């Protein structure tokens, strides 16, 4: 895999995770490159979503979880005790599988976090940020007249784009996406896949998907997980055309799901 000229944005060193006594991640070493789309693939239960959630410390919310190892963004350890997890999540945002707009207006959905983080002040500055975020998510034309309406009144695909806009508004460096299109119809899926490609210019995108074709379509790099191990990681094209590991080949050719 060619790595010259590539900046490592997020890096994990020997990351291990246990749910109680059950070890779910067995020492993951992974470099995620800046302004690229990296996809995690693998059969269910392989640990890809668990690993994703380690990158923004969402696993901290589960009381039975124990983590060892390092995760660094731009060389800074996000698990360092002096670091406030709130600050980590501002830098590393997340979009979930089920669209989860807040029971508030579209405007408030987007404006809430930036205002709390003091990125903008209320008023025209905020309006501008909201519009920019919605435009970046490709949703502006559809909602520009409906900003006061509740976010939950939108269709599934629109809601997910709203969630993406919401994540963008916080001005993160990295956007994590946990199976963002698996609950959506094919047309919405395509819109969001196109969006991802646009967004990588400004952000680093990491997406978990159970749909290999999606990884093949959008991702620059792909990581294949299996039973808590990172089996193979490389440029997407090379992974799909000429996988190095047997397991990878078996998964890609559908020998197990």
């Amino acid at each position, binding site marked *: 895999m060619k790595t010259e000229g590539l900046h490592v944005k997020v890096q994990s060193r020997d990351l291990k995770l246990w749910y109680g006594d059950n070890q779910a991640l067995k020492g993951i070493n992974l470099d995620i490159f800046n302004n690229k789309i990296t996809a995690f693939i693998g059969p269910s239960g392989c640990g890809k979503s668990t690993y994703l959630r380690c990158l923004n410390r969402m696993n901290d919310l589960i009381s039975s979880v124990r983590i060892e190892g390092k995760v660094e963004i731009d060389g800074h350890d996000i698990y360092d005790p002096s670091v406030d997890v709130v600050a980590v999540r501002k830098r590393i*945002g*997340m979009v979930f599988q089920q669209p*989860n707009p807040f029971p508030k207006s579209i405007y408030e959905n987007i404006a809430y*976090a930036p205002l709390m983080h003091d990125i903008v002040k209320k008023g025209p500055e905020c309006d501008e940020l909201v519009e920019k975020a919605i435009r970046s998510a490709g949703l502006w034309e559809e909602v520009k007249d409906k900003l006061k309406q509740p976010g*939950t009144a939108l269709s599934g695909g629109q809601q997910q784009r709203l969630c993406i806009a*919401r*994540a963008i508004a916080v001005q993160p460096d990295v956007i994590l996406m946990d199976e963002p299109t698996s609950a959506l119809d094919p047309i919405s899926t395509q819109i969001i896949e196109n969006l991802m490609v646009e967004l990588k210019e400004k952000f680093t995108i990491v997406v978990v998907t159970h749909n290999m074709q999606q990884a093949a379509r959008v991702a620059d790099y792909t990581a294949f997980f299996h039973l808590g191990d990172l089996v193979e990681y490389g440029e997407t094209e090379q992974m799909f055309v000429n996988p190095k590991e047997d397991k990878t080949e078996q998964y890609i050719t559908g020998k197990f799901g």
Partner: protein
Amino acid sequence: MLFIAFIVGKGRAISIRAKGLKMHSQPDQYGWFVTLYTGLPAMMVGVVGVFLSLFGVASIPPLMLIGAALALAAFSLYGLSVKMNEKTKARDLVENFIKGLLLLAAFISIITTFGILFSIVFEAFHFFQRESFIGFVFGTTWDPDSAFLAGAGRGHEDVAAAKFGAVPIFAGTFYITAIAMAVAVPIGLLSAIYLAEYASDKARNRIKPALEILAGIPTVVYGFFAAITVAPLLVNFFRSLGIDASFESALGAGIVMGIMIIPIIASLSDDVISSVPNNIRNGSLALGMNKAETIKFVVLPSAMPGVIAAVLLGVSRALGETMIVVMAAGLRPNLSWNPLDDMTTVTVKIVQAMVGDQAFDSSLTLAAFALGLVLFVVTLIINVISVYLIRSFHKKYKVSNL
């Protein structure tokens, strides 16, 4: 008698079966069939007789009643044992009978509601025939003493007519309820938030039963606590500040009533907040919001319909509460803004009207029914709204986020 019927029925059925003919139902069911159809007519006769004598329509000597019942039973027994054959659909008949019986039981709850409604409306109607309705709803003077005298048979023409303006009483009820809610809602809701969001499972399991104990304390006990402990405390406290407070202050009754309502609000709110899906919480946390911000901006608004329903339920409970106010609030209707004043409520007046010595149909007694009617209607409306809110809350979270 019925036992004999059962045996005969079963015996006949077995004999038929022994002949090898195909039967429709089991022998046991035939037994029950015969029992029912002999016993029931006999019982009906008895019941009719009792009702007749109750209403004073006709008085049938008990012996004759029993004789008639037995005769009827014997008659049907004979008829059935002769006519019953393998074609008798005993099973279905017994089944339907039981179904009917159960339905009757279910009806009793409806009869009860109508009973309450009927008795209250009926007597309240009598009241409004005598006293003015407008005066009742809008009048501010409640002075029924001459009605009491009249009811006890000593009315004079020169005594001023009784006035039944209920506004001070309504005001007292609402004021004390308001104080109670001012205590119960903040404490109850915040307690629920802590239980639902912050407390560990172990702590939750220990604390929830404690709250249930608080909820199970009889209101008369709260009333005692209010009158004997809280009231003197309040009076002394305010006295030390140089303010006069009544021993029967609205504040005392209101505070204790609030304590009583805390578990209602806390428990229901806790359920509602816990059932807000985690997905929404995660969305807020992933944006870099901390827990408190997430609760305030996302969780609570989502739970709001349920919380409002809980508050309404609390209000309804407070409005209808009797013992605490009877023991700790005042007896005189008093239209006042001062929470340290004594004032009275609808429920106190109802009790007062009923335990006096006047005749049942004096205006004072009937006034109690009029007050009861108002209470019934108001609490009914509040409860309907509350149920509707909870239902729509559950619907919202069943459909979305599938």
